[in-house]
């Protein structure tokens, strides 16, 4: 790319660190230079990811509950606007004032009728949405199973694929799993069985490399473990072992909990 601005300026601008004349000059240049505008887009992406360097933290469950409550509260006025709420019209004087009480009574009657119809619509719409959601979940699940089967077939047919049995560790409920790993492809498929973890915990599968820290592969909860799942690692990574640990719900960047299943890779594999 031709260097129209200092190569670091897009990053510094995206970071918000540029100020004064440097900032003004950069903004003026980017407005008329598509190449530097693209460089700024890429810089914004990089800078956004710096947020991932923050120490791990988990919001309280009540935050999500409050969010979903607010979402539901917003839906009701929307529905009212779409169905039952009268539109705002400018007041128009009636020529026959004696009709006003009659119209008033009729308006109350029709408003009540509209409200009843609207409530029924809401119930029906809710049921339809529920069924649509169930259908989407079922379709997604079918696709997942088909993908998992295809991935497993791909691994099984590839040269260099090794099988590693993961054995239950003392003190934990019964369970076992097997891993298919192909270092050249950087691909892992795992299938097995474990009872559901506690509600605030997840299982997490790790690759323990010959050198360096364990690499997180997948996070599981509940019955998902019963079906094969696939994960990817940088190709060429030599594995010493695979393990499943119990971690806080959602998983961790490095293992913190006890090992439930462990399987070492035999030398020569």
């Amino acid at each position: 790319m031709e260097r129209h601005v200092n190569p670091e300026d897009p990053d510094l601008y995206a970071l918000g660190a540029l100020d004064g004349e440097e900032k003004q000059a950069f903004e003026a240049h980017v407005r008329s230079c598509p190449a530097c505008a693209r460089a700024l887009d890429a810089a914004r992406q990089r800078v956004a990811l710096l947020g991932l360097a923050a120490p791990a933290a988990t919001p309280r469950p009540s935050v999500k509950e409050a969010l979903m409550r607010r979402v539901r509260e917003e839906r009701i006025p929307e529905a009212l606007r779409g169905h039952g709420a009268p539109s705002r019209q400018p007041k128009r004087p009636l020529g026959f004032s004696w009709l006003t009480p009659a119209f008033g009574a009729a308006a109350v009657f029709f408003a009540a009728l509209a409200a009843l119809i609207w409530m029924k619509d809401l119930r029906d719409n809710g049921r339809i949405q529920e069924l649509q959601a169930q259908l989407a979940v079922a379709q997604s699940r079918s696709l997942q199973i088909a993908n998992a089967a295809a991935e497993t077939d791909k691994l099984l047919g590839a040269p260099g694929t090794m099988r590693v049995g993961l054995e239950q560790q003392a003190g934990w409920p019964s369970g076992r799993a097997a891993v298919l790993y192909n270092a050249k492809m950087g691909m892992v498929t795992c299938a097995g069985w474990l009872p559901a973890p506690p509600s605030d915990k997840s299982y997490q599968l790790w690759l323990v490399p010959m050198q360096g820290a364990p690499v997180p592969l997948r996070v599981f909860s509940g019955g998902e473990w019963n079906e094969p799942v696939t994960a990817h690692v940088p190709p060429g990574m030599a594995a010493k072992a695979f393990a499943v640990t119990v971690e806080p719900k959602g998983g961790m960047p490095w293992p913190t909990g006890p090992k439930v299943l462990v399987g070492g890779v035999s030398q020569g594999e």
Partner: protein
Amino acid sequence: MTAPTQRVPDSALVERIMAGEEDALSALYDRYAGMLYAMLVRILKDTSAAEEVLQDLFLQLWRGASRFDASRGSLPAWLLVIGRNRALSRLRRRERREILEDPEEFSLEAVPSAGDLEDEAWRMQLMQRLRSAMATLPPEQKEALELAYFEGMTQTEIAARTGSPLGTVKSRVRAAMQSLKQFFDDGTTRQSGRS
């Protein structure tokens, strides 16, 4: 990259949000709330404030999901940018400082795809590697970068805070970003290599 088998794409969930499905918002919250909350707590140093911003962020997604174009942007990157801007605005209001950028005007399309952040395992690897990369920066570079990112300071403000000459601060921030740019370039290559 081969799609992991147990993941509904962000774009599909956003479409379902546009159709008014609360479950889809719930799924995206489960996917990204932890990542965002960690950043918000780091910026605001106040868990209650971080929770408020987090909730507002997802409410904004619920109301404005139609603005998301999966072909042109990455949802988690957008959430990180908007979340950071909101948190910094709140921080500046608290400190009576000028707001440099209006987060509401930030275009979603200004954040192109940032690797496969939808993939939880990849995201966690990236977090781990990014923390390691930050830890290897010289302390003064790391400090300058953190003051800029997590406290929204300009180079001039960092110079005033640290008592270092402005030229020195500029060199530190530039060197830190150059190191991280190299890190991201390597990471992106690795991610692309899995395609």
